[in-house]
């Protein structure tokens, strides 16, 4: 089990919907469970039959992790739990758990009530689904079961967005979800520690973009809005109720205040106050600035932004309207678009990415006419602007994240194929890392070196440490450990030989040799011993040669001198079989001496 498998059920070389299957160490984890906004049929949900053609999904999937509340990451969750029947654990952060059901319900209403589709999940299903969710906090190590562990990191992007580290034993994967490496007006930058995952699965929406400075983009945005209202036009800003909307509101509100502008700004009613309340309550998830000042002034109490009322759409003159959803695929934003698009004075600003198939995507690609299901045709004469305000990491940010967490492999998802290709080359070049980009339904197998964990007896480690520290410091000298590995079933333990024998329940058999050499050295034995000590120390540099009680010892080799003064000495050399090389070497030295002396 040294392979990690990643199978995108969505977000493989596309941006439509995120749903990725991860297999690691015998565990199956589903990363995100998103819905595709570009489809109106079954294709909007991930193909769960891929996981388990028939039979329950629950027994196959160990857990589902949702990175943030955007519907392309969580939209299919009620479908999975209430219709497909998954009943295992689901994890997301507290803000995601709070906000996701609001967006799900909003989408359900649009789909079922406005488009009249049946065969979709119900309000009750959303509620039942959310009851099964376990909320996690940042950096908490959560054990899903005995082996599977998950940990969330701050991802920026939207309130509550998180990256997740998933690990089984020594293997680990980081899944980024959507993230942002530069702090914005209300959120902080993504952060992760040097956790060195085997695989980093990263989004790559802006794989090839290095976005110009934040300030420039903001100035551009304000300039365009002001130009349009100056000529009496209406500005439509399609947004999702939570996320970018809050940042743009902060931006416009403070600009209106500063420039003393009077043109009305509206925000689609209903969600506004509620949405801002979430921001107030989860203010710990915003950035330092917002956090520090929240007691004195709450950034989400806007002065110039008023709730939108349906009757305002007929009002003459300039106005700015924030309306959901963000990709002009349904709801109020699409309604207003149809009304305002035929007039040159008006403007639509798309502040984020649009999925293929949505009206947003069409007009961004220059479509001058849009045909709707009911044969209604709308001319697009209003100006169409695109401002990249969605908070994804750009190429620089992605490279930065790789640098932070030092993965062994990188896998790109949530991006367009050609752009991924470019980034992949860049990653290979700069980091010398293998980089993958599987398509939907394609299995990507990544072989990881397996790590083996061994218990080492502390006395063994300590004795090595004592030896090491006794020598003059030299970082280049290799440290060597010698011991006996005891293997009992799956348990591995390294210990010294005597401990090992005891552990294995066997007796060691010690072989010892003793040889005698006769030396002509007419001096007291103690003098002879000193002479020999000097000689050995000279010949055996790097060894510890010790003289105690008239005997010399080197490792297990013992040299003993016998005989009176003024006569021939008997020198006994004794050693164990393990020190054969050393013992016979010392014996050689003595024998050669004997020759010289006689």
């Amino acid at each position: 089990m040294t392979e990690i498998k990643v199978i995108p059920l969505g977000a493989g070389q596309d941006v439509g919907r995120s749903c990725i299957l991860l297999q690691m160490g015998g565990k199956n984890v589903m990363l995100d469970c998103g819905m595709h906004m570009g489809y109106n049929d079954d294709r909007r949900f991930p193909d769960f039959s891929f996981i388990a053609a028939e039979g329950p999904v629950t027994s196959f999937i160990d857990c589902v992790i949702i990175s943030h509340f955007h519907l392309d990451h969580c939209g299919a969750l009620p479908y999975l739990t209430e219709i497909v029947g998954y009943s295992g654990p689901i994890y997301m952060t507290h803000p995601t758990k709070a906000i996701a059901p609001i967006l799900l319900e909003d989408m359900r209403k649009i789909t079922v009530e406005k488009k009249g589709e049946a065969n979709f999940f119900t309000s009750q299903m959303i509620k039942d689904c959310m009851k099964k969710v376990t909320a996690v906090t940042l950096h908490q190590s959560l054990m899903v079961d005995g082996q599977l562990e998950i940990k969330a990191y701050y991802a920026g992007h939207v309130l509550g967005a998180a990256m997740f580290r998933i690990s089984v034993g020594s293997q680990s994967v980081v899944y980024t979800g959507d993230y942002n490496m530069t702090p914005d007006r209300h959120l902080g930058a993504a952060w992760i520690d040097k956790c060195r995952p085997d695989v980093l699965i990263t989004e790559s929406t802006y794989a090839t973009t290095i976005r110009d400075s934040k300030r420039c983009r903001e100035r551009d945005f304000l300039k365009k809005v002001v130009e349009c209202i100056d000529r009496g036009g209406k500005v439509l800003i399609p947004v999702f109720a939570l996320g970018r909307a809050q940042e743009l509101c902060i931006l416009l509100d403070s600009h209106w205040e500063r420039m003393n502008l009077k043109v009305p700004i509206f925000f689609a009613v209903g969600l506004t106050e509620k949405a801002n309340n979430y921001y107030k309550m989860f203010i710990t998830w915003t950035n330092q600035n917002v956090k520090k000042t929240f007691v004195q002034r709450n950034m989400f109490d806007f002065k110039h932004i008023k709730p939108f009322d349906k009757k305002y759409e007929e009002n003459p003159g300039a106005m700015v309207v924030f309306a959901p959803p963000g990709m002009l695929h349904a709801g109020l934003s699409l309604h207003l678009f149809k009304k305002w698009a035929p007039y040159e004075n008006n403007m639509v600003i798309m502040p984020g990415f649009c999925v293929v198939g949505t009206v947003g995507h069409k007009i961004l690609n220059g479509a001058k006419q849009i045909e709707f299901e009911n044969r209604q045709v709308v001319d697009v004469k209003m100006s169409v602007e695109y401002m990249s305000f969605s908070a994804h990491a750009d190429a620089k940010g992605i490279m930065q994240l790789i640098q932070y967490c030092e993965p062994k492999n990188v896998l790109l998802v949530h991006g367009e194929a050609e752009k991924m290709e470019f980034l992949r080359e860049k990653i290979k070049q700069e980091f010398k890392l293998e980089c993958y980009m599987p398509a939907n339904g394609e299995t990507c197998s990544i072989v990881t070196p397996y790590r083996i964990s061994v218990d080492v007896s502390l006395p063994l480690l300590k004795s090595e440490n004592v030896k090491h520290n006794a020598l003059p410091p030299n970082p280049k000298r290799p440290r060597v450990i010698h011991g006996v590995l005891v293997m009992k079933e799956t348990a591995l333990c390294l210990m010294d030989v005597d401990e090992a024998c005891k552990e294995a329940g066997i007796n060691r058999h010690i072989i010892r040799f003793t040889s005698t050499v006769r030396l002509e050295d007419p001096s007291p034995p103690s003098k002879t011993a000193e002479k020999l000590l000097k000689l050995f120390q000279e010949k055996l540099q790097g060894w510890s040669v010790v003289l105690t009680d008239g005997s010399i010892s080197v490792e297990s080799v013992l040299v003993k001198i016998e005989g009176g003064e003024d006569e021939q000495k008997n020198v006994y050399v004794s050693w164990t079989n393990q020190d054969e090389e050393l013992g016979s070497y010392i014996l050689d030295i003595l024998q050669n001496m004997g020759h010289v002396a006689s």
Partner: protein
Amino acid sequence: MMLDCGLSVHTALNFLPLPLVPSSRLLNLPSWMPRESEGSQLEGELKECCSRIFVDSAPEFCPPLDKIVDYSELDVILISNYTSMLALPFITERTGFKGVVYATEPTLQIGRLYLEELVEYIEQTPKRNQAKYWKEVLHLLPSPLCDSFKPRSWKQLYTLSDVQASLSRIKVVGYDEKRDVYGALNVTAVSSGYCLGSSNWIISSDYEKVAYVSGSSTLTTHPRPMDQNVLKNCNVLILTGLTQTPTVNPDTMLGELCMAVAATLKANGSVLIPCYPSGVVYDLFECLSSHLDSSSLSSIPMYFISPVADMSLGYSNILAEWLSNTKQNKVYLPEEPFPHAYLVKTGRLMHYKRIYSDGFSTDFRQPCVVFCGHPSLRFGDAVHFIELWGSNPLHTVIFTEPDFPYLDALAPFQPLAMKAVHCPIDTSLNFTQANKLIRELKPSTLVVPNAYTQAPSAHPHRSDLVIDQESRYVISVQRGEVVSLAVKRHTAKVDLCPILADKVSGCEVRPGVNLATITAGLLVKDNQHNIKEWADEGPSGKRKKLTRPEDCLRQLKYEWGNLDIDQFVQKLNQEGIKDAKVERSNTGFIIHLEEDTLIQVDDKSTHIYCEAADRQLRLKLRNILMQCLNSF
């Protein structure tokens, strides 16, 4: 590693209160001199009030003992909750401390409020004189002054800049977040259920686990419930922070408090509740407001006065992830988790930084309920209200914080006409709960303060107010004592490189037990060990000299088991050594060969004696012997 950093604020009770407006009563208290005293240095340091002696000086506090520990050598301080970090600036600043402090986000944020409030209380009423001679004549002073513990080590409070510097050393951790300490240990904060962000700590290595349990509660109040599962089966459980009021039930006290408040208000009196800026006070707002509603006293205003009141109320409502499930679920609606947000919005609860803040004097009307600090009644706005209301028997002061004996707190204000009610609310574990917890956690060794092993001195016969010591190894500790914990580490987890692992071939010595002798390179980085293949360096070739002891280890094998003597002799024969004479000895055999060669064999060893000159013979014998023995 230091566990918590609490400050003993009790010492402040020996000092005169610091009123916001000069009090003629306090100014006119008679000086007190011991009869035997000779010098006049003591002049003016001590004052007498109703036969209690107080020091007339800026109050002093007793930080953790120094001299036992060199604070500059501390690596880590773990903080359990915001009430046990008030000495932090004393330790982290100007002691050479270089380590890190770990605490949860609420502990840091609310701890900051506690520290800032304390500093502000002391600084807004500066005292010119600093009494010190009384410490020299301690033996001449009456009780309780003469019983002061090491008053020479007492210190004046730190400054705001010390607080900022100290708090900047805190690294924030989440519950269940494993923090690596120099690669050697992991520390993890787990929920303790006592207050917002309060934690117990797990200190663990690969195989050993020490749990530090302090300030825990199993009652349901506003914080997240205590996580007991993770504390199970540890080698050592250090248990402290049990209730300071073991004989009363906090729920009963809360009930009595509500009754006392209602009774006072109905009689047109006002109520003072001295409190800290966070904690139980949130529960008091909640319970009291609903009790007043049901007693048709809804129109009675509640005032919360603290330099950090706004921050405290604000923060408490954004810490959803640290709250009980009920409170947590409210933010999903989204509604503020604490009702005090609503009480503030509707004007029932009004908060001010100080009594002289804008608006307070115009808003203030009686009867009312005032929440303000400090519970010691030595500084803070509470001093003002006691002075203001003390002579009127219609008013009531209710003591809820268990940290100070209420009669001592009131001593410098005597004689008082105002009613005093004692309703201590301490949600920490009581002895019954603690004993139950210990039984469930099953630690190998339990460490508790000495005081928990005997009945409290006020209730010498309550044998239920002690920690059970049966069927468990218990170490009791006292202030200033050094004990060694019974944790012996035996093994460490080390990574073995797979390339090396592939080459290891074990010998089966018993069914299912394999042994393999290995010599390998050891990489040590940040206290983490890695065993790698030991790369050979350069051409070894014909090395004449033995350069490194390690070189000899490379091919090493170890022999084991018994030597089959018949097989051995037979092999000797086959190899041409025919004149072996085998002789039995007490422990085994002795084999005599030609000349002076002799082999001594017993169960666990074989010893070959041989002339140096007979090298060839010796090597031959060695070979044969090794063929006859098992090895690994």
